[in-house]
């Protein structure tokens, strides 16, 4: 490969809203020089079978991710807070739906 090609075409993460009423979710990535191209590539690659009504593209480099090493400290403390869930509370059936 020549040196001229050593500059990498940036990577973009693609998010698609399958239909209105649903959130965009991550489907994969594409390579594109800029956001215009990235959106078109995402359309051509990821919606060939009517998978979406809206697309987001985000430069992969712009995503900040939580550290898997901190997974326990981040997410385990929530597991014990069962009083945040409705099933924690005892309400007699006679009261009806609540």
């Amino acid at each position, binding site marked *: *490969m*020549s040196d*001229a*090609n*050593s*500059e*990498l*075409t940036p*990577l973009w993460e693609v998010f698609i809203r399958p239909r209105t009423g649903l959130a965009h979710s991550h*489907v*994969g*990535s*594409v*390579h*594109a*020089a*800029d956001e215009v*191209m990235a959106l078109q590539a995402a359309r051509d*690659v990821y919606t*060939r*079978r009517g998978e979406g009504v809206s697309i987001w593209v985000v430069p992969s480099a712009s995503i900040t*991710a939580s*550290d*898997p*090493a901190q997974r326990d400290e981040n997410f385990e403390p929530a597991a014990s807070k069962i009083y945040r869930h409705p099933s924690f509370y005892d309400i007699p059936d006679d009261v009806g739906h609540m």
Partner: protein
Amino acid sequence: MYSQGLIGADGRTAEDQDFLNRFQARIDDEQKIEPNDPMPEGYRRTLVRQIGQHAHSEIVGMLPEGNWITRAPSLRRKASLLAKVQDEGGHGLYLYSAAETLGVSREQMTEELLTGKAKYSSIFNYPTLSWADIGTIGWLVDGAAIMNQIPLCRCSYGPYARAMIRICKEESFHQRQGYEIVMKLAQGSPEQKAMAQESLDRFWQPVLMMFGPPDSESQNTDQSTRWKIKRFTNDELRQKFVDATVPQAEFLGLTIPDPDLKWNEDKQGFDFGPIDWDEFWRVVKGKGPMNRQRVEARQKAWDDGAWVREAALAHAEKRRAMAAE
């Protein structure tokens, strides 16, 4: 479409036993491994190699089938074939994306393909000589790929498994498309039927080779299986494939070119004749009928496209500069 048993992966790894045990426990617990998770270097290397071989197979696989897009015998067939070959490109792209989560860029992967460092499925080093080959590839090659790919949807590495789910969903039309083509030929005129049979005769052995070397010769199956990168052995998949395919051929009235093929009541499967593994290794090592042409075609596309990719980057840079002003 892809089904090659992984060739030549190096699963050796140097982490301490405690780390490996903890990792194995996660795998045994059917937890998915995600990109930033700690993982043994051997696991990462095996995955990169397998995803790479898989992706390259999709990309190179566009060539033998693309060879017939402009000659498809009806407009309906032309549209399906074009959509199918396009899908293969898409699948290559999904897989390159999955490999990129392991820190290998598409440019690196492409370079490995073009320099011959990375392998791809041996089947694509055979030429497509007749229209029937398009049917045969869809029926048998995609059929073989499905055998291999469905279990990969449960592969332990999250991005690979997710790519495979998408791929399997899209490929569900590929095998049917191929079978329909062959069926039309098998039920057509004598010369059409002969065309289908000739194609089956030519592709049968290479298709069986697609599953990779026999388990007795395959060094890496054990480790890959333990890590749930691979979920069935080459021989298991090959057997499943033969068992599924024989009745399909019978339905078509085509003859599978193997005098040793017969039902084995004890194993509830078909016995089949020996496979020419010398040919397999010749093809894998670059001496198949089309190896050189396939890589040259990809090299040409890459070289001819260089100025286009450069222009896109240069234009993007100008736009960024304009926006910043």
